[in-house]
């Protein structure tokens, strides 16, 4: 049978994988701090011998995530922070390693540890930030957490820690399986004084629904064309079989 059938098949199969990436972006259209993933297809040539170079299979990959900022949503909560411009909040992942996120809807657990909404401890330097009981909590533009202690006036603001904010080169960042970003070389990023926070806001997902949807439709049509190619390959095989039939 014509090899074009297999080539068209890899095209269709990789269209489906690309579709899954866009579906995931779309599913996370309202996930706080989510960064959408790019998807691209690459030609994988498998050439041998002389003749036409016709065996190029498709291969889908996601080279990187989109690091553009998402829309800022005002919530008015003291513990909600959004990063203005570039940068990430350092958190301790479930496996104990350091990861980076843009999701700044924080909360305090019963032991006073500052955590993200999905329970990961926010790092201040190398260790989590523990906040004593307080009347009022304020997170400054550089990540400094200060509180007014119980029974004290606003003049007695005390600093209890500083959230580790990092600004690694995004070329160097990759999304891990748990959805946190990490550096490709496995090293922890340096704290950066340049990253600016805004408290009382959270950053929404940066998924552009229209963009995603256009790509989903384009991929759908492309997929139909691959199927047409498979059908054509099949038709060709059928007619050559009938021509050569001895009757």
């Amino acid at each position, binding site marked *: 049978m014509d090899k074009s059938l297999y080539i068209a098949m890899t095209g269709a199969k990789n269209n*489906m*994988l690309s579709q899954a990436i866009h579906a995931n972006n779309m*599913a*996370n259209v309202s996930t706080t701090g989510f960064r959408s993933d790019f998807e691209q297809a690459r030609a994988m040539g498998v050439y041998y011998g002389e003749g036409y170079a016709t065996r190029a299979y498709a291969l889908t*990959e*996601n080279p990187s995530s989109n690091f553009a900022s998402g829309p800022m949503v005002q919530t*008015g909560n003291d513990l909600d922070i959004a990063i203005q411009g570039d940068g990430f909040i350092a958190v301790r992942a479930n496996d104990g390693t350091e990861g980076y996120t843009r999701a700044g809807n924080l909360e305090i657990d019963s032991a006073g540890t500052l955590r993200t909404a999905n329970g990961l401890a926010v790092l201040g330097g190398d260790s989590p930030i523990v906040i004593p009981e307080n009347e009022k909590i304020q997170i400054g533009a550089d990540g400094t957490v200060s509180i007014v202690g119980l029974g004290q006036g606003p003049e007695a603001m005390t600093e209890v820690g500083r959230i580790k904010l990092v600004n690694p080169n995004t070329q160097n960042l990759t999304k891990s399986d748990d*959805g946190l970003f990490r550096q490709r070389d496995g090293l922890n990023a340096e704290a950066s004084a340049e990253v600016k926070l805004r408290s009382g806001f959270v950053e929404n997902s940066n998924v552009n629904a229209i963009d995603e949807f256009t790509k*989903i439709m384009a991929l759908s049509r492309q997929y139909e064309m691959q199927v047409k190619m498979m059908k054509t390959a099949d038709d060709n095989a059928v007619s050559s079989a009938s021509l050569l039939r001895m009757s």
Partner: protein
Amino acid sequence: MHAALYVSKTGLAAQDKQLTTISNNLANASTVGFKRDRAIFEDLIYQNQRQPGAQETQETQLPSGLQLGTGTRVVATQKEFSQGTLQVTDQPLDVAINGRGFLQVLQPDGTISYTRNGQLQINGEGQLVNADGYLLEPAITVPQGVNKITISESGTVNGYTQGVVDPQQLGDITLADFVNPSGLQAVGGNLYVETLASGNPVQGTPGENGMGSLKQGMLEGSNVNIVEEMVSMITTQRAYEMNSKVIASADQMLQYISQNL
């Protein structure tokens, strides 16, 4: 069959939960002492189809791999304990808490639950109870003949009797506070119960050590912001529609191949 189908399904399920949260907030837009819930979305794990950085040959590495995300979920709903608006009612037994803290009420099973709803009433035995008839803790009894009650900012309840100059001290209302109020479990009836996540209650006198002060003749309205809920309702509906479109599109792809091959 087609990964996109299941991924979009998680999107639909999460938006559905978000809408439930919004509708509950809106339904409680005028519930005294109600605190709004916020649904928290989280992306699910990623499946590594091809590891980025893997050796392609001895000398070359794959520049980028293929990671497929598996969708989203609502990981939690978080109660937002911001202050609701204070409304003046001029009822002597209405108290609002201005600041942190919860009133304590004794449930019929003997456990203490916590509330921000200060619509107190007097039951047949003269005891202060909440709207459901649960006793205020510490218990305060209003004796016969008292025709005026004052509640001070620090919680002292005084009763005045006709013809008697000096007030009669009936008791003190105390408040309880938690390290992490968002960790309290809402049990309905404007009540919350303590959990491991909220930490232990810390008792205190209103107006001292960070506790809010009591305001007699006022009530704390719901902290639901109608406009905000309406806007989230729009985004939720549209996100739901788009996720269902992705499902339709994936379905068409499968239909196309099964009909044409």
